[in-house]
């Protein structure tokens, strides 16, 4: 797998504890009361080590990439304007409503069967084999109904599965390990914090000449899948724009916080927030509209990306941009706000600042952002995965899909039978799905990277085409009316369809050049906000999101993906933040880590655009992650439209907005992702008691 197994199952005696939530010992008991009592019997002797919390100063680098094209330094000299900027984003919790949970059942052959809430059965399967030293058959993983994932159940379920399995092995009976919300928030993976620096050279008319971008991500205490997140973040860091001279340097460093991991967008939301906000600031500096600067730079057919990838088909940046701008009435609303802002500025308490003095307490703003998202695994990832999806015509005459691709609300179990029934020409109800159980289904790869519809869906269509051809060749009649007779005469048929590289798509891992993705999805977002000029509170009122998903398989489900991803992006932009002290998450409860409610949520309008990818029979490119990339920068641009203040650190909390509007230095909170020191401050500065230490 693409996950580095550098995280110990438990810290060994005499070993190094690298973060506050690291597991040291495992306890199981027949009931909660005994378990609580047993916990008090555990004594841990530790000696402190100097911690590292700042990825900028950490000298332990998990991964580094450099992308280069053209000659940026020469181009900066020729540029009419060079603009620099630094952007920071912090941790974000996936906050699936169902916490991580596993049940391990020891089996007679010395193995273990694990049932759990998880995205990737074969990742857990691999972890059990490696961690327990058991073989393919002894390890069995069954996905239970899974109450949301968003990347948060990609990798961490392996940790819990191993813990439950170890306990089950010793106890000789089933063990369940169900995290409560506090444990889930304190210990499981978050979106990587990042610091992104841009230096951009443009012509007077807004054409990009040179981009020099530095990305630093905070990997947390163990590497796990950080290099893959960083890779996607780096490749998307320039935004969906043509630029002849580019240098992107990206690194991820180790810090003493819990490991960061996968979350919808997987590195791209961090770097695309920076790219879009920076481009909006360039437009402002040049006196260009955000829409116009994008029209002048957006990738078109035949353009080349920083990895040297020529965009040969399915390029819809322009189309999503125009459709979102039109439906969101971007030009009209912006003109209206320009006038309102001009009236307000100068009439303020602080001279020259937009703080109000007049009767208008609320300022409205509209913002625009554009994004691209590579479909499927990065680089040679899909080739290495070599996924297999199978289709069976059973001896009983049932048509059965066998994949390890999981349902967690996004629609796998709906669209797979749709694709297969369409290809076979049979009613939808005739197609059934085998359970996501490693004892029965092949490894169709992890359910991540918006790859399920495109990659696994494509394999299933090919398998169905083969099945149909085989049956029709034998019977001479249409599949739908002859397959049952064929089964009675000839028995079961099973088609195993293995991934084959898409024609003409290639990537070199060593030089980091080539087709980083077989295709890209494109998204544009127009967000309308209201900012309370007294409190700095933001209310996102309306969002229009135009998303090119290649081909829409199920419109209701696709809209649902855009709506849900958009709200997660709105939360990322406005309210979601982990505060840390001494490397420990302070707001590790749902009372303190807040996500948007129905009253915080904007009205979301989805426009589905179809620019099909020719490499798969159905043209689908995936939808899950696209809206997550584009929502936050649109909201931040809308806040700037309302207040004139550019927020460079997410989230745009009232504190940050007020600090920006007042123009007073030193009142802004700590940068996102930063850990305040452990040393207690003088009593005068800390009137409230520190939260109790809830050591694990």
């Amino acid at each position, binding site marked *: 797998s693409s996950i580095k197994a550098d995280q110990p199952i438990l810290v060994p005696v005499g070993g190094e504890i690298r973060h506050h939530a690291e597991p040291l010992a495992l306890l199981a008991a027949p009931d909660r009361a005994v378990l609580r009592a047993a916990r008090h019997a555990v004594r841990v002797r530790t000696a402190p080590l100097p911690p590292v919390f700042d990825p900028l100063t950490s000298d332990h680098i998990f991964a580094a990439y450099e992308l280069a094209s053209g000659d940026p330094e020469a181009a900066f000299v020729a540029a009419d304007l060079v603009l620099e900027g630094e952007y920071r984003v912090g941790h974000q919790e*996936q*906050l*699936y*409503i*169902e*916490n991580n949970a596993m049940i391990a059942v020891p089996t007679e052959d010395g193995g273990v069967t694990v049932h759990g809430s998880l995205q990737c059965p074969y990742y857990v399967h691999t972890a059990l084999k490696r961690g327990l030293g058991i073989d393919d058959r002894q390890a069995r993983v069954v996905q239970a*109904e*899974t*109450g*949301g*994932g*968003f990347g948060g159940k990609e990798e961490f379920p392996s940790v819990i599965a191993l813990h439950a399995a170890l306990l089950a092995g010793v106890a000789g009976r089933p063990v369940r390990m169900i995290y*409560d*919300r506090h444990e889930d928030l304190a210990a499981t993976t978050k979106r990587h914090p990042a610091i992104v620096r841009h230096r951009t050279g443009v012509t007077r008319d807004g054409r990009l000449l040179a981009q020099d971008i530095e990305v630093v991500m905070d990997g947390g205490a163990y590497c796990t899948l950080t290099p893959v997140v960083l890779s996607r973040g780096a490749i998307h860091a320039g935004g969906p724009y043509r630029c002849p001279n580019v240098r992107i340097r990206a690194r991820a460093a180790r810090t003493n916080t819990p490991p960061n991991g996968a979350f919808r967008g997987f590195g791209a939301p961090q770097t695309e927030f920076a790219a879009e906000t920076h481009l909006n600031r360039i437009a402002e500096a040049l006196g260009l509209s955000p829409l116009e600067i994008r029209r002048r730079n957006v990738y078109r057919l035949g353009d080349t990306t920083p990895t040297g990838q020529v965009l040969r088909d399915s390029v819809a940046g322009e189309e999503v941009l125009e459709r979102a701008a039109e439906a969101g009435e971007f030009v009209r609303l912006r003109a209206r706000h320009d006038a309102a802002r001009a009236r307000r500025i100068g009439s303020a308490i602080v001279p020259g600042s937009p703080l109000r003095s007049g009767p208008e307490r609320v300022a409205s703003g509209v913002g625009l952002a554009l994004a691209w998202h590579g479909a499927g695994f990065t680089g040679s990832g899909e080739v290495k995965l070599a996924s297999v999806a199978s289709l069976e015509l059973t001896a009983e005459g049932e048509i059965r899909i066998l994949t390890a691709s999981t*349902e*967690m*609300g*996004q*629609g796998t*179990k*709906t*669209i797979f*039978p*749709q694709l297969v029934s369409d290809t076979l020409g049979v009613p939808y*109800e005739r*197609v*059934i*799905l085998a359970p996501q159980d490693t004892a029965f289904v092949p490894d169709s790869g992890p359910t991540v990277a918006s790859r399920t519809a495109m990659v696994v869906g494509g394999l299933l269509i090919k398998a169905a085409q083969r099945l149909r051809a085989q049956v029709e060749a034998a019977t001479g009649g249409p599949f739908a009316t002859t397959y049952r007779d064929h089964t009675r005469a000839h028995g079961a048929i099973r088609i195993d369809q293995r991934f084959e590289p898409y024609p003409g798509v290639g990537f070199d891992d060593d030089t980091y050049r080539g087709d980083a993705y077989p295709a890209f999805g494109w998204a544009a977002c127009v967000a309308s906000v209201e900012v309370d000029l007294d409190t700095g509170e933001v209310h996102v009122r309306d969002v229009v999101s135009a998303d090119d998903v290649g081909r829409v398989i*199920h419109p*209701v*489900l696709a*809209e*649902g993906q855009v*709506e*849900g*991803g*958009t*709200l*997660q992006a709105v939360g990322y932009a406005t309210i979601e933040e982990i505060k840390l002290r001494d490397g420990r998450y302070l707001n590790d*409860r*749902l*009372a303190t880590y807040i*996500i948007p*409610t*129905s*009253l915080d*949520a904007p*009205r*979301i309008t989805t426009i589905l655009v179809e620019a099909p990818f020719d490499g798969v029979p159905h043209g689908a490119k995936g939808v899950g992650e696209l809206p997550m990339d584009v929502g936050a920068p649109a909201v931040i641009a809308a806040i700037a439209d309302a207040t004139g203040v550019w927020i460079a650190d997410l989230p745009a909390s009232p504190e940050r907005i007020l600090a920006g509007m007042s123009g007073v230095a030193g009142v802004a909170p700590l940068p996102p992702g930063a850990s305040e020191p452990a040393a207690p401050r003088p009593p005068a500065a800390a009137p409230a008691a520190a939260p109790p230490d809830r050591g694990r």
Partner: protein
Amino acid sequence: MTAFRFTVNAQPVEVDVPGMRRLLDVLREELALTGTKEGCGEGECGACTVLLDGAPVDSCLVPICQVDGAVVSTVEGLAPALDRLDALQTAFLETGGAQCGICTPGMLMAGRAYLDDGGGPDEDAVREAIAGNLCRCTGYTKIVEAIAQAAGASADRGHPPLIPPGGNP
């Protein structure tokens, strides 16, 4: 241990448990009504919403001693018959109001309480009614749509279920 008697989904029940046991645990562990979900255990997410004497409550915050003699409704009791769904359930299916489904039981109960209270299809009022129920999948759009649709169709509540357009096999 004390015996507590109350009604769940029109059935009288008696449980012998400590008085501070959470209603949520009694429902799930004593009565095997696992349709009610736990998301946070501290009254923030609303996944464990049930109706207590008709009012929506977070069952993780209600000790069983407060339930003695009361009427409890859970998601298991929502459908009027095995082959008939509640109008609200039908609306969730038709609009795509559920994705992963873990918030759905709580959403349905909060929505049912809103409709039983005479709530109409006004969007702002619907959003207010489910403000105590978190969903991370849907962006709330289709949940609000579902409750508004059921409010509009409340006259013909209890019609036969529809097969979801993309229903799971």
